[in-house]
């Protein structure tokens, strides 16, 4: 299932980022503050692990989502940058490579070995808890609060997405 530009827009809206109707979400700019190419690569590399294989075109989705969010929420951008930096340090220590340069299986293994799969999600917690919050969970939130992510599960208007009041009325008669 393809993640579209509209998914990025609605994920941003769901995440509290104002996106004017018809606005064009460009690729990230210098206004994105602490989130640069390195951080973006880390996010994309995490997304390729935590998103299911059915999701395609994650790069454009992640870049637009991150760009829009970073511009509106500088504290969040700083948290992402710190978490990405820690993840790279960890990968360098244990795998002698930046996280984004590892293959998908190794990235999955790195995240699990640091405990990001079972860690609490806490923006003010330990390094691993912040990896869970700012990288893993932020990407999962962007996906599963979007119509595309919801539809993968069977709900086209997931919680957090302003998808109107028609879908709750629809269903197959028994």
């Amino acid at each position, binding site marked *: 299932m393809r993640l579209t530009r509209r998914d990025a827009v609605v994920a941003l809206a769901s*995440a509290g980022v*104002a996106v004017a109707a018809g606005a064009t979400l460009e690729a990230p700019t210098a206004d994105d503050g602490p989130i640069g190419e390195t951080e973006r690569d880390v996010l994309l590399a995490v997304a390729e692990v935590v998103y299911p294989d059915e999701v395609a075109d994650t790069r454009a989705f992640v870049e637009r989502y991150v760009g829009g969010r970073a511009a509106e929420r500088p504290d969040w951008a700083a948290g992402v940058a710190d978490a990405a930096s820690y993840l790279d340090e960890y990968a360098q220590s244990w795998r002698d490579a930046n996280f984004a340069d590892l293959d998908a299986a190794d990235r999955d293994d790195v995240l699990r070995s640091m405990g990001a799969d079972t860690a609490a*999600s806490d923006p003010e917690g330990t390094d691993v808890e912040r990896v869970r919050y700012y990288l893993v969970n932020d990407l*999962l*939130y962007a996906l599963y609060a979007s119509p595309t992510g919801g539809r993968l599960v069977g709900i086209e208007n*997931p919680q957090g997405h302003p998808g109107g*009041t028609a879908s709750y009325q629809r269903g197959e008669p028994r």
Partner: protein
Amino acid sequence: MSDRAPSPRVDVCVVGAGPAGALVADRLATAGHDVVVLEAGPRFDPDSREERMERSIRPAGDPRAVWDMGGPRDAYESTGERAYPLNRSRVKGVGGSSLHWQGMVMRLHEADFESATRRGLGADWPIDYADLRPFYADAERALGVAGASDNPFAPPRAEPHPLPAFPPSHSDSLFASACEDLGIATHSVPNARNSEPYDGEGACVGYGTCQPVCPSGAKYDATRHVASAEAAGARVIDRAPVRRLRHDDAGDRVVAAEYTSPDGRRHRQTARQFVLAAGGVEGPRLLLLSRSERYPDGLANSSGAVGKYFHDHLFAGAGGTVDADTRQNHVGFNTTESHQFYEGDGGRIKLEFLNYAGPSPVEQALGADEWGDDLLSSLRDAYGGHLAVGGLVEQLPRAENRVTLSATRTDDRGDPVPEIEWSLGDYERRAIRRANEIQREILDAAGADVQWTVGPDATGPAFHHMGTTRMGTDPESSVVDPRLRAHDLANLTIPSSSAFVTGGAMNPTLTIAALALKAAEHLDADL
């Protein structure tokens, strides 16, 4: 003069900017009176709501933090048989607890006002449904209630709701046939939520997070009437917790509300009339804190009833799964319920057919210990066929359930914190068990595999704080009179759920609003 310094003596000082305080302030300011509202909590930035919604979905942090509740400012003690999670049940700030409420707005039934006479339980209100009926209609217009006149058990009404009811959900249709087989009538839910644009706010857009936050503003909250009051000239001072009400030498009238601003300075707001609209816990707490030589047991407490008769509604529920898609968690509100068991022998029960049974996929994803294809597989397995019937059960008012001042703990200002003693009685336990029986029958009829039940042991409060300054005609046994004025003090009005004598099993906010509008009418006439 700082922006939180008191105004020169005003006509009305309102304590609390929740629905009751906001409605009174709006009506009286619109009528041309000088009004100051003192609110303990902050004025939240409306633009923060989407971020607060995200907080509510993500597992990080404590749910209280969605509206910044908790910490020394909000300290309390719970010492009764049952723990009472006070800070989960309220919001301090402009808009009050309506910022996180569900938004269900039913009128009490006629029988609720005559509980002692009709059933020999609880006590009668000193007013009846007919007295409150015009104010209910007024309140429905004020809150923008979406509803339909399809409830055969509801009290009589002369006019339609101001907005059309939300249509039933897909899962409602599954329940409807089951209930029909059982002879149970179902009907729509009155919601303080825009089914169409109303009062400057758009229609609901289906974020699905009504409780604890509506990012769009389609769910009514009291910031609407705060804004209206301010447009009419009222002054609202936030982060201004009132610590004492002071009376004159004779003890006949309140003369000032003493509050503290964030810089630690104490201030006195004087006024001709005072309105205590701080809810069913902070209201009685302030009266008890305001004890004096003249009133050693607390202000307005000659009866000894201040803080007593604290009651709530109890949740009862059951749920399970069917082999079909039930389409849950698209929206965060309900569209069908049944009042059929409200006035039966088993205790007051209101049944709610939930539109949010089972897991929300995004919440489940954020709390999972897996990701990728494994996570998606788990989400698919978990989502799909859930059904649940919830409901509210009446709690009777009993003197031993009460709000007092802690003898051992103080808040960040050095004032004793509220101590809540709360327990269930046999009546509630029986009614919850009866509700569970009905709920299981319905689920069985719907073909569900029943997997959970919330019964008397697992139940919890619905966060409706009632009864702690009860209304009555006898100053020996009640705190306020039928016009919501304290028996002891001629210029202190308490329009709140604390004035409820009994609470039935109906969500209380529409009745709070009706009482507030009634009080505002009396005050306007006095001023």
